[in-house]
């Protein structure tokens, strides 16, 4: 727009340039304001319902607080109690580790397996997909209650087992069988994971399979060297989500424990279903030890952060991205 002049710009040109700069700064400032106006609901929500609670949770973890009276500063007492004197803490940790170590791989393996079955189905794919996905739609509470009666000592599963002369476990009434009962519930709800894996499996380029066939690879080798690496990003995604959800595990355990009798303590039978969140709930919202519950929640936060970081770090070794950028 401006032509190059040999002599320095005259005074009116300088004023115009300065005016242009001021206008640009004003419009940039206005853009910023508009953006902030649009963002305002989230900014308020994030600060009030997220940042503030996290920080004050840290504060409360150093106090003894039961809501009725004022909080009392007790320093590291809550943490000391947690790690040395609270037996149920370690039970909760062990049970939650069980969920993360057993249920998550189980769901992923089963999800991949079910998805693989669906990739080879010729007719009725829509029907199978709907049927496999349907249990995921059922509200967790209803599903858990359903399984309580399904696995009841008088229920059909045991009836079938008895018919086949197999041992009939007491399932949710027996501390040794309560968690496997929950594992059954988890495999029933594998539909969501399966759908994601189905999409990923269908995405694997056919040429890779053909190349593998040409080299004489058997089905197991094909799976190990073509399928698994190609779907490894989705496996990674599912593992991260699964681990985070494993730490959050609550509703099923709560419903199942209290199904027999409302007064059953959370974790019945015999604390076998006491998971980390159940313990937190029991301490904070049944016993109203708010400070201790806050401490528990912070420990959980740190553990989840560490686990997620470890997972992400470890993923570089076994996750293969098709773009080859890692």
């Amino acid at each position, binding site marked *: 727009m401006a032509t190059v002049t040999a002599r320095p710009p005259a005074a009116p040109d300088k004023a115009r340039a300065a005016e242009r700069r001021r206008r640009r700064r004003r419009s940039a400032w206005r853009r910023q304001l508009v953006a902030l106006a649009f963002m305002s*609901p989230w900014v308020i*929500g994030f600060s009030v319902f997220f940042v503030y*609670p996290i920080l004050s949770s840290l504060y409360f973890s150093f106090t003894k607080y039961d809501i009725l009276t004022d909080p009392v500063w007790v320093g590291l007492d809550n943490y000391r109690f947690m790690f040395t004197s609270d037996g149920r803490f370690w039970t909760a940790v062990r049970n939650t580790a069980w969920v993360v170590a057993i249920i998550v791989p189980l769901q992923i393996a089963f999800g991949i397996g079910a998805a693989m079955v669906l990739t080879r189905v010729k007719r009725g794919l829509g029907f199978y997909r709907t049927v496999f996905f349907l249990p995921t*739609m059922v509200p967790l509470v209803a599903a858990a*209650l359903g399984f309580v*009666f399904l696995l009841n000592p008088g229920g*059909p599963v045991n009836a079938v087992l008895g018919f086949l002369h197999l041992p009939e476990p007491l399932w949710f009434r027996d501390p040794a069988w309560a968690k496997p009962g929950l594992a059954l519930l988890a495999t029933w709800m594998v539909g969501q994971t399966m759908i994601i894996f189905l999409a990923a499996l269908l*995405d694997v380029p056919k040429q890779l399979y053909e190349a593998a066939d040409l080299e004489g690879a058997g089905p197991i080798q094909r799976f190990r060297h073509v399928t698994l690496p190609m779907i490894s990003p989705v496996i990674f995604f599912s593992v991260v989500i699964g681990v985070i959800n494993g730490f959050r595990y609550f*509703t099923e355990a*709560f419903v199942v424990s209290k199904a027999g009798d409302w007064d059953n303590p959370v974790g019945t039978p015999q604390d076998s279903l006491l998971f980390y969140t159940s313990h937190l709930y029991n301490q904070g919202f049944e016993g109203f030890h708010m400070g201790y519950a806050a401490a528990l929640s912070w420990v959980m936060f740190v553990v989840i952060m560490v686990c997620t970081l470890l997972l992400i770090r470890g993923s570089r070794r076994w996750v293969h991205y098709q773009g080859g950028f890692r």
Partner: protein
Amino acid sequence: MAVANHSVAIALSIMFLLPFVFIVSTALMTNQQTGSLSIWPSPFRWSNFTDLFEFFPFWRYAWNSLLYAGLGTVGVVLSGIPVAYALSRLRWRGRQVSFVLVLSSLMLPVQVTIVPLYIIFVRLGWIGSLKPLIIPLFFGDAFTIFLLRQFFMTIPQELSDAARVDGANDLQILLRVIVPLAKPAIAAVALFNFLYCWNDFFSPLLYAGNNPDTWTLAISLQQLTQLSRGILANLQMAASILFTLPVLIIFFLAQKVFVEGVTLTGVKG
């Protein structure tokens, strides 16, 4: 080989469908039958579905669930649209950081914040009502914002530019250009949120659990054990079915919206 695969598929289908069959059949039995080993109800007690209303203020709880899910969805959509717009189609300082913060709040488990949140709500006097459940949703929900932002980014910039040349400001662009184009994404997000709130157990338990008048269906179902004089399995299963029915109906009617919603998250690789 295909036959073996097909039989596995059929076996799996039976496995997935059997619990449904069992729940329905239990719901139709008399109480003594549920304790016995019979798997097939005889006679079919359809009256269970009407009897349960005697023990169980079903409609009040259904209304609470509807309030929570309905108002919650409205709040999430109303707050999510402008935020997603700012994160996707405006250029401003702090945009990247804000997006990272939105994502991070997705990953954080709710347990870390519930203790102080509960205390805030106690001080506000909201405990025992549905307010702690509904009101925060009017201030943004990370998942909704994420999905909408991803979708908004696929709308060509030229459309916004054309509108701007015509003299529209950002609010008008948002309402007259972006929102009409984003209807499928908004529908998907609304659906996800409605179902999430309808099925939600933990938050209602925490904030409304002490006041039976504000129980949602999810909580009340679990409490039915206490309300009746013992475990009335058949009534509990009948109530569970009524609780699940809207979800299944919505699922079947809106399958297309679901599939679009899943692909919007772009889970692939």
